[in-house]
């Protein structure tokens, strides 16, 4: 499991509006990569382009290459459904399916694709995924209760369990902790540390300490002004970005003199 991603000169448009311009980067397998940058600079846009989720938005399109272990995601004939089965995503706001129980939420990726699955197999996957998301002990007695009845932090970990239940190669997380308290945040950060042994992880965050704590590499995005496209300013080892970045704008941003 876990594959690397290479992005080559990616432009992302919403209709006529160029939101992200000319991004190239390498994302290593089995590592955590953090995206930081001021609001509106295109981090979410870029992240969603990595598993073709932007196509859900009418008018959104990309130019350039995104290679998953050498396979171009945007090549002719590639099915976005298959892309997303390999590259999972966790969103800013927890979004468990309200009609499903905790167990069904975890198994949603398998059940919605109506793969056949025995009860014991389902139990096994549910337990493994929930343990993987550090949630098992809290919900093991209420697996049949609605997933929407959990606390916000538990719901977010439920969504992570749901994402890893389908065993993707890559896990994209868009500000997964922004709606959570410090303790749940810590739980998820620990979790990211464990998950990176098996998955390639990309995380968007506004929290510098979080980026510094969890990530191996950090990418700084910036925007010249409203209406201008967002760009990748620099990408380097996290310690380097936070101690002696190569670009002045990065230094200003991480030290809080900006944005």
């Amino acid at each position, binding site marked *: 499991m876990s594959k690397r991603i290479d992005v080559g000169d990616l432009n992302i448009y919403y209709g006529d509006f160029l939101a992200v311009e000319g991004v190239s980067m390498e994302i290593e397998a089995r590592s955590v990569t953090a995206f930081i940058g001021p609001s509106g600079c295109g981090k979410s846009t870029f992240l969603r382009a990595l598993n073709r*989720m932007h196509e*859900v938005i009418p008018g959104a399109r990309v130019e350039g290459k995104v290679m998953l272990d050498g396979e171009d995601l945007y090549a002719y004939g590639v099915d976005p459904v298959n892309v*997303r089965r*390999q590259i999972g995503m966790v969103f800013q706001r927890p*979004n468990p399916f309200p*009609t499903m129980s905790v167990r069904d939420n975890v198994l949603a*990726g398998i059940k*919605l*694709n109506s793969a056949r699955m025995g009860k014991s197999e389902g139990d096994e996957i549910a337990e493994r995924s929930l343990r993987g998301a550090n949630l098992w002990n809290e919900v093991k007695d209420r697996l049949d*209760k609605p997933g929407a009845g959990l606390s916000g932090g538990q719901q977010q970990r439920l969504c992570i369990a749901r994402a890893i239940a389908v065993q993707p190669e890559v896990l994209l997380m868009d500000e997964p902790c922004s709606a959570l308290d410090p303790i749940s945040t810590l739980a998820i950060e620990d979790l990211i540390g464990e998950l990176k042994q098996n998955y390639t992880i990309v995380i968007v965050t506004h929290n510098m300490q979080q980026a510094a704590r969890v990530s191996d590499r950090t990418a700084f995005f910036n925007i010249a002004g409203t209406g201008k496209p967002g760009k990748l300013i620099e990408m380097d080892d996290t310690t380097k970005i936070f101690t002696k970045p190569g670009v002045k704008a990065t230094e200003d941003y991480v030290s809080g003199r900006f944005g």
Partner: protein
Amino acid sequence: MTVTTSTPHESSTLTHDQLHRYVPVGLFVAAGALGAALSAVIGFSLPMFVVLTVVIFAIVLPIVSGVVEGRRKAIDRFVTVLVYMAFVIALVPLVSVIWSVIGNGLSAFSADFLTTSMRNVTGLEDQQTAQEGAPLIGGAYHALMGTLLITALAAAISVPIGLMTSIYLVEYGRGRLARAITFFVDVMTGIPSIVAGLFAAALFAVLFGVGTRNGFAGAVALSVLMIPVVVRSSEEMLRIVPNELREAAYALGVPKWRMILRVVIPTAISGIASGVTLAIARVVGETAPLIVTAGFTSSINTNPFSDWMMSLPAYVYSLAMRPLSGSEPQPSLDRAWAAALTLVIIVMLLNLIARLIAKAFAPKTGR
């Protein structure tokens, strides 16, 4: 009369004089007494008493409140009284309709009424009932069956078409086609029901010969009225399904059609089902389209694909407009009212079912 209770602290900026809870009640009783006295002077009548009471109350309460509590509270109380008044006025027709339907309908309403048809019932029997006190015979079983069958058929036609249209509009529709569909659905909403009836009658005349009337033609006419309602209400319900759920499903690699089937529809099903039930309630009492498509009969016909079929609204119409016995219309009118009562009961049951469905399917929360 002391109207203040909370004595404000000299220094406090938060407390303020307030009317005691019971002061408005007291004022209302006083307004009632004054209204009764005034209307007694002019010549008592119930509507005058009610109107005077309410007007006096709507004037006095804001004045008292303005003196004690200040301008903002006075306006607040005045508007509150207006809102309550509007609500009660809106209720008056509803309550009086139910009141008169129950009052007039109960005399002929019975198990017998619901289980017999009008076959072989003539004006002669009605004259005997009216003049010699013979029991009322003849009921609305054939009309009840007709209404249930025609409405069920109409629902069977409209629900799939309406639901699929709304899914297209919400999940797929972009650009000109979607806008055209929305436009025509809006136009359909405004079609007068008699026009829908004539359309179905003309359609069946072309397909099966002039003068073809049966329950199915009635169902088609009702569908024309029902489809736009189903489209509109389902569309509304599908639109409020949060986009985040769709994205969550996409991110798991779920194909779009399965996402719609397994995530969007289950999330919206309670609203869709109750919308459908209300759409049925909307058309179950339609009269004009059924008269021109399904016709009248006094016998039981449970085959909607051949022969004329009675329905409750047509039954009410025919008995009220053309009583069996010209000289003794009362028994016929009693039956018409009883059928109207049956119709109202059906509509109320449908509303109740809509609520139960909404509750049963609603996404569950809690531990």
